[in-house]
């Protein structure tokens, strides 16, 4: 039977419907009063703010399926931990259980409260006791971001030690929302999907276990989905309280710090802090207070703040810029980071260093495994490039977190240039962050934001800039061609006749030096042509002697004559105590492209030393495959591959010159 009750709001008298017996708390949709459902009369627990319009695909009544269980969204909490507000939607499953769907910075996560066991209670208490004091850096031995804790039998990495507040709530909820109270929490991660939160709002720590999901995983019923665009608040114009210059705030709901583009003063919403502001007031951002001036800097964004474009298929807008730098060997190495707001939700970064551009997309920090100077992610290997303490030098524009001059983080960058990708890992005592890096050509950035010619001259080689030469591909291609050449050689070896057209023992050679003996053969038939002819002169046992053959192959049909010469010699001896030998006793020469036909062979032989008065053998073989040509024609291919490999090495050497591990240095 379908549950449906109507309560009368004790504050405004309006009807408040309750659609599930699992909802213990409910807010009045007319006056935003939080009510405790009671069978007799609802209790007024005070008014709450209207939620800020964050632009979500969820709303009360949205239905979907998670892990095979249908769910319906009953209500939501809106929280803030200093990085802009986010929604946590309370969804009731068909079996009566509740799950929480969190949306933050473009990510969707589904949580479920873990059943507390004795072991888990003990582990949670131990974790909570290791927390650093509120607002202070972790002391030695205290829990810090990057640390490892055990829950049940699983080991988790601490990704954030944070504090925040429940700003407001709406709809029907299974537990009392601690609206207005500050919370402390520990975010944990394992791999690229598993997440957990230890919530320290109440006296006893609570554990929520969950996972990152894609919206598609939730199989939302499109007829119940919300239109995120309809809810979003547009840009708003305000005056800088310091210089009275006009400022355009692109995302007034989420902007936490704004650096004036005129006087560079850092501003914050008038009641900054873990804001407990009504959503509407927060959205207006009409009241800004001066937080602090920036010292001795002249911020300059390489792309104007507010510029919009479509990057890698996604509409984005530049809303802020940071100047960062790291000191190494007494020298500052600066770069600039531009915050891109995605229309689809969440943020990307554009990083510019020495005229090279990178697109940074957030990544779960626990999805990266580090080992020595290597990092692994999604089965790919990245090499450490640079690392150090990066500090914020200047800020410009608006940000969803409290950023200011002097903020520091340990940064390690890794590269896999062959993929055109890299990884960036950032660590503070309270938070881990990771992002993937992709090389962007300046022309792509230029086209995206309609920029004029490059303002920043490019120097050196970018960290993940693809090498124009890919040696693996080059040598693979060379290997394929060499294999084809070998196959051709085998084919010619099979197809070529290798026909012996003349083979005769002749002689003896002249008995005196400088005298020729001449032989004229009977007609020889060359049936294949044009083809090569190999001429071999041998004299078995020739030692300390020389035989010279001058031949002529005469085409009986045309009278064309091909002359040739070869020699067989073999000498050896001892000179200066070392034995030597030269010659193989065999002479070979080749005749090229001999047409088919009938031929006669004229052979004139001379001898010297033991080559005088010797018998010798002459053999002619037609159409013989020559392996020599295989090597000859491979050479230019190998030469091109070697030149390209050298080009690759020069490029890589220039890239790694700017790293912590330059080539040629240990």
């Amino acid at each position, binding site marked *: 039977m379908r549950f449906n009750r109507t309560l009368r709001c004790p504050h405004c008298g309006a009807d408040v419907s309750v659609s599930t017996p699992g909802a213990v708390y409910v807010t009045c949709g007319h006056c935003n009063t939080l009510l405790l459902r009671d069978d007799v009369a609802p209790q007024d627990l005070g008014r709450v703010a209207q939620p800020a319009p964050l632009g979500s695909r969820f709303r009360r009544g949205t239905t979907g399926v998670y892990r095979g269980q249908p769910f319906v969204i009953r209500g939501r909490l809106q929280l803030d931990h200093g990085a802009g507000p986010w929604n946590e939607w309370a969804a009731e499953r068909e079996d009566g259980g509740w799950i929480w769907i969190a949306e933050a910075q473009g990510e969707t996560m589904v949580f479920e409260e873990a059943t507390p066991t004795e072991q888990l209670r003990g582990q949670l208490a131990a974790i909570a006791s290791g927390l650093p004091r509120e607002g202070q850096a972790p002391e030695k031995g205290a829990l810090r971001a990057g640390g490892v804790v055990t829950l049940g039998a699983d080991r988790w990495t601490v990704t954030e030690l944070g504090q925040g507040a429940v700003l407001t709530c709406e709809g029907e909820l299974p537990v009392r929302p601690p609206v207005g109270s500050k919370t402390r929490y520990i975010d944990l991660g394992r791999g690229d999907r598993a997440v957990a939160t230890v919530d320290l709002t109440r006296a006893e720590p609570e554990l929520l276990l969950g996972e990152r999901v894609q919206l598609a995983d939730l199989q939302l019923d499109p007829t119940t989905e919300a239109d995120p665009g309809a809810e979003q608040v547009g840009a708003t114009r305000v005056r800088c309280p310091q210089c009275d210059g006009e400022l355009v705030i692109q995302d007034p709901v989420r902007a936490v710090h704004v650096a004036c583009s005129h006087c560079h003063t850092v501003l914050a919403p008038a009641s900054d802090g873990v804001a407990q502001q009504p959503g509407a007031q927060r959205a207006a951002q009409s009241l800004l207070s001066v937080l602090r001036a920036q010292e001795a800097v002249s911020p300059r964004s390489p792309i104007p703040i507010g510029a919009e474009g479509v990057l890698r298929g996604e509409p984005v807008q530049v809303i802020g810029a940071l100047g960062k730098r790291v000191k190494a060997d007494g020298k500052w190495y600066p770069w600039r980071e531009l915050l891109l707001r995605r229309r689809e939700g969440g943020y990307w970064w554009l990083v510019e260093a020495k005229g090279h551009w990178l697109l940074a997309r957030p990544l779960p920090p626990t999805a990266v495994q580090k080992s020595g100077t290597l990092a692994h992610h999604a089965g790919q290997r990245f090499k450490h490039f640079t690392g150090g303490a990066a500090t914020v030098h200047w800020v410009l524009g608006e940000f969803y977190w409290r950023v200011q001059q002097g903020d520091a983080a340990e940064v390690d960058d890794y590269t896999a240039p062959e993929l055109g990708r890299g990884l960036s890992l950032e660590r503070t005592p309270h938070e881990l962050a990771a992002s993937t890096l992709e*090389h962007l050509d300046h022309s792509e950035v230029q086209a995206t934001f309609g920029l004029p010619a490059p303002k920043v001259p490019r120097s050196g080689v970018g960290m993940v*800039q*693809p*090498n*124009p030469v890919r040696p693996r591909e*080059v040598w693979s*291609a*060379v290997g394929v*061609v060499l294999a*084809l*050449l070998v196959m*051709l*050689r085998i084919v*010619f070896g099979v197809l*070529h006749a290798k026909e012996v057209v003349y083979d005769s023992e002749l002689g003896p050679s002249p008995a005196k030096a400088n005298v*020729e003996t*001449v032989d*004229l053969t009977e007609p020889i038939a060359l049936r294949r*042509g*044009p*083809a*090569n*002819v190999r*001429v071999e002169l041998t004299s078995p046992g020739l030692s300390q002697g020389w035989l010279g053959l*001058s031949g*002529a*192959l*005469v085409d*009986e049909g*045309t*009278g*064309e*004559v*091909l*002359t*040739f010469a070869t020699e067989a010699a073999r000498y050896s001896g001892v000179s200066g105590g070392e034995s030597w030998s030269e010659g193989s006793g065999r002479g070979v*020469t*080749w*005749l*090229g*492209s*001999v047409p088919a036909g009938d031929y*006669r062979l*004229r052979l*004139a032989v001379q001898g010297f030393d033991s080559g005088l008065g010797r018998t010798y053998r002459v053999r002619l073989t037609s*159409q013989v*495959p*020559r392996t020599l*040509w*295989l090597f000859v*024609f*491979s050479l*230019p*291919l190998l*030469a*091109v*591959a070697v*030149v*390209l490999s050298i*080009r690759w090495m020069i490029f890589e050497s220039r890239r790694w010159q700017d790293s912590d591990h330059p080539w040629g240095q240990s």
Partner: protein
Amino acid sequence: MKPLELNLARVALIAAALFALGGYALVEARGIAFGGRKAPARVTPEELRSSSTGSSTFIYWSHGLRGK
């Protein structure tokens, strides 16, 4: 990445590959070799039969020097 440079590298590699495969196939199929030299004149088998070292006929077709 400079596309032109990338293309040049590809073109050089493809050209070298075509040269290797085409050149090797051609010399094998045509039986090309660089030994042997075509004499500048023709002879009949009778002239050949009668030629001997130092004869004018032999010298003519083997060296192209008539009358020596």
